[in-house]
């Protein structure tokens, strides 16, 4: 039976196949000679670009990969974190968030609607071309003017009030605004990376989205969309070459994947570590936690035009009802600061005299009675899973409010995109009466916390009070620093008194770090490899 013999799968044949499969598997498991690939992940034996030099290589894993490498065509922090390894803002900031010299070496207010900056000389782009004032002006115009740079930039609001920029006869960059705009320099320290005009104009949008040419400490080595971005240090960086020679940044949405990669020694930095996992990282000999208060505040805005939130007493009652110290301790494992105003400690305009509302459920019930809305049934709309433990925070808040004898509260978890859509459509009627939101502000100035939410006519305002609005709008055009700071502090005090939000917490940035990396985490959510060193 020759046919039977050919087709036969005997026990011996099967064992041979299984043995071969196991051998291939074991070859994959065992080989010590491939271990070197795991960190650098460079499998090209002919590649000598240094990426696989583990001794001086850093691997960061964040939550999302970049959507583009065009520094002016996105709005995500995770994309910024990639871009800001290679591109730079006009100014640098110190650890306290103050503006310091960067690509700009001198700056002054010429008059109410003209602001002047002087661009550093001797700065090179990665392609070897020298940075010029024209490049600076072009970068600003590309963000604010849809007719410049073949781009309708989604970052236009980040340079609010700026109309255009030009280079004057002395080689200074003159920034024209629509009126007094004290935020002009602060915004250039947080937004609008500087690009080279010729490099941008010589390329189509697709090429700009996949390549980089900045003045920053790292130059692009390889970008694999959706997988990783590799950098090497730029030897001609104006502030001195980076200590770490090569860098890979990739992403994993799942926090356990990031943490396990860190604990297995595959990566050096894991961003956005959940507080509940911090203990496991700290207890591991090879890893530790680095944390910093972030630039994001969590809050529960209440629409001023919808009952029962029309009542100041009711809004204050919502603040008294919640034991936020307990939430910080039990939900956030201590990684959070209670807030008392719309802005954050350390910000220009923060009012240090304000304390968070204390937990006082009896007082809350009294205020509800005084408001005339006893028995109110309210619902908190929450963008599911959007912020650090925000679902759990929201559930705790709802629980505390629902525990009041005269208010009942439910939670409605919704999609962030859906909530964003109805928040930003410019129509307050579509905004939920009571919702959770996080607001990031990297300008370190209270105005960007107050203005969008508390002045009528913005795309997402939820509260209007004449006195409060006057204070905010006055601060917006006040160029005297002391006067302006007082106006912002008064606005914060007024917002606290009015209880415009239920003030929640300042979010913390929690990073899992390999012990070999030394770094002081910064509040701006960026993991700049230039600021890190290897032990």
């Amino acid at each position, binding site marked *: 039976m020759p046919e039977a013999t050919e087709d*036969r799968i*005997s026990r011996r044949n099967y064992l041979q196949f299984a043995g071969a499969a196991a051998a291939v598997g074991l070859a994959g498991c065992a080989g010590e000679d491939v271990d070197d690939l795991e960190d650098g992940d460079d499998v090209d034996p002919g590649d000598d670009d240094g990426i696989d030099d583990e001794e001086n290589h850093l691997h960061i894993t964040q939550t999302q990969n970049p959507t583009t490498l065009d520094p002016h065509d996105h709005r995500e922090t995770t994309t910024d974190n990639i871009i800001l390894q290679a591109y730079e803002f006009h100014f640098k900031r110190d650890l306290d968030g103050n503006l310091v010299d960067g690509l700009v070496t001198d700056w002054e207010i010429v008059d109410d609607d003209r602001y002047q900056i002087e661009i550093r000389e001797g700065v090179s782009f990665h392609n070897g071309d020298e940075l010029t004032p024209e490049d600076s002006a072009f970068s600003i115009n590309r963000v604010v003017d849809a007719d410049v740079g073949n781009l309708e930039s989604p970052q236009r609001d980040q340079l609010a009030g700026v109309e255009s920029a030009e280079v004057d006869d002395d080689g200074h960059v003159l920034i024209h605004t629509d009126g007094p705009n004290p935020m002009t320099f602060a915004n250039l320290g947080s937004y609008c990376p500087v690009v080279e005009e010729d490099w941008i104009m010589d390329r189509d949008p697709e090429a700009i989205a996949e390549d980089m040419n900045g003045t920053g400490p790292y130059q692009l080595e390889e970008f694999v969309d*959706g997988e990783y971005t590799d950098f090497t240090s730029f030897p001609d960086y104006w502030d001195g070459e980076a200590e770490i020679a090569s860098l890979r940044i990739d992403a994993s949405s799942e926090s*356990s*994947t990031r943490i396990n990669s860190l604990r297995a020694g595959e990566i050096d930095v894991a961003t956005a570590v959940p507080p509940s996992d911090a203990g496991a990282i700290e207890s591991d000999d090879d890893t530790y936690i680095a944390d910093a208060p972030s630039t994001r505040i969590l809050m529960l805005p209440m629409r001023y035009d919808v009952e029962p939130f029309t009542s100041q007493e009711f809004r204050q009652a919502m603040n008294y009802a919640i034991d936020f110290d307990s939430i910080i301790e039990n939900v956030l494992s201590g990684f959070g600061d209670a807030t008392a105003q719309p802005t954050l400690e350390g910000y220009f305009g923060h009012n240090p005299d304000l304390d968070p509302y204390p937990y006082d459920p009896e007082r809350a019930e009294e205020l509800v009675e005084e408001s005339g809305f006893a028995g109110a049934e309210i619902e908190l709309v929450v963008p599911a899973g959007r912020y650090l433990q925000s679902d759990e925070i929201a559930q705790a808040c709802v629980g505390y409010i629902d525990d009041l004898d005269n208010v009942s509260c439910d939670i409605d978890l919704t999609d962030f*995109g859906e909530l964003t859509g109805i928040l930003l459509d410019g129509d307050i009627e579509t905004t939920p009466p009571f919702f959770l939101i996080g607001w990031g502000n990297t300008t370190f100035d209270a105005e960007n916390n107050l203005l969008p939410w508390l002045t009528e006519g913005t795309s997402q305002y939820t509260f209007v009070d004449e006195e409060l609005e006057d204070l905010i709008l006055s601060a917006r055009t006040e160029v005297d620093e002391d006067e302006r700071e007082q106006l912002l502090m008064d606005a914060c005090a007024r917002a606290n008194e009015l209880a415009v939000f239920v003030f929640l917490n300042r979010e913390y940035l929690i990073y899992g770090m390999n012990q070999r990396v030394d770094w002081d985490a910064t509040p701006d959510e960026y993991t700049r490899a230039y600021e890190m060193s290897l032990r």
Partner: protein
Amino acid sequence: MSTYQFLIRRGLQGLLVIWGVITVVFLLRFMTPGSPVDFVAPLDASPELRAQIARNLGLDQPIYVQYAQYLGSLLQGDMGFSYIRGRPASGIIFLRLPATIELAVAATVVAIIFSIPLGVISATRRHEPADYAATGFSLVGISTPNFWLGIMLILLVSVGLGILPTSRRPIGLVPAMEMLIFQFETVGIQTWIRHMILPAITLGTYFTAMIVRLTRSGMLDQLGQPYVKAARAKGLPETLVTYKHALRNTMIPIITVLGLQLGTLIGGAVITEFVFNWPGLGTLIIDAINVRDWPIIQGALIVIGVGFVVINIVVDALYARLNPRVSLE
């Protein structure tokens, strides 16, 4: 009907199915809350600017016009531009497709290697410890959620024992094979295998458990058939009776399920890709849904749908080949 005619007929039917998929996927965007404009427009965008952006994205047109334009573009191989990335959706999708196919095929291979022998052993040693072990594994495998199994494997094998990587796909199969063939370097294929093992086991476990059950019940059925008794009566060795005769007939439904499941795996590897940071279509779709990047969502779902249809046609053809009693009619 010849195989050629059969393939043409099924191909035409497949086209109808694909058209249905395209239509349903296209209509999904209008049933989903949230607009891509919210993710593209500046926060302070005026209603006029938002309308302008909607116009630029082609979202201001009536549905039937958008539908006709989309169908026309698809016929030219154009899936549109990603709203967020500003690049052709097809390029982004096809860059991710190999990772998903590799994972699905590897999971299927894992399933075939383990499930069929286990099923056969279970059937031929009925009510013995091996049978109980196999059916026990089958029950646990079917009941275990992918995300839990994946995380547990990572914790045990990668973090605990440190013998396999936790996640990622540093090299694809094709470049790894190119290195092997053209440079005689095994490092690429070793890396690929090391990174593939845990995701493939995670994705393939449910599949393995299901095929074990299918094989066992099929084998039990076949081993009771008269032709098996006749074969034994002729004096054929039991191994030959089992593998040559009974298993071959059991393979017919197994092949059908394998094919269908391969299609399901291509579309259903989302959780596994998520846990293992696998850069495939699943993670791409999740990211795109979060920002309402409809050209990516639509394109990826259509690619999955086409893959499913093609696999089904291949399975049908193979089915007829394996069992000549089944007419292509």
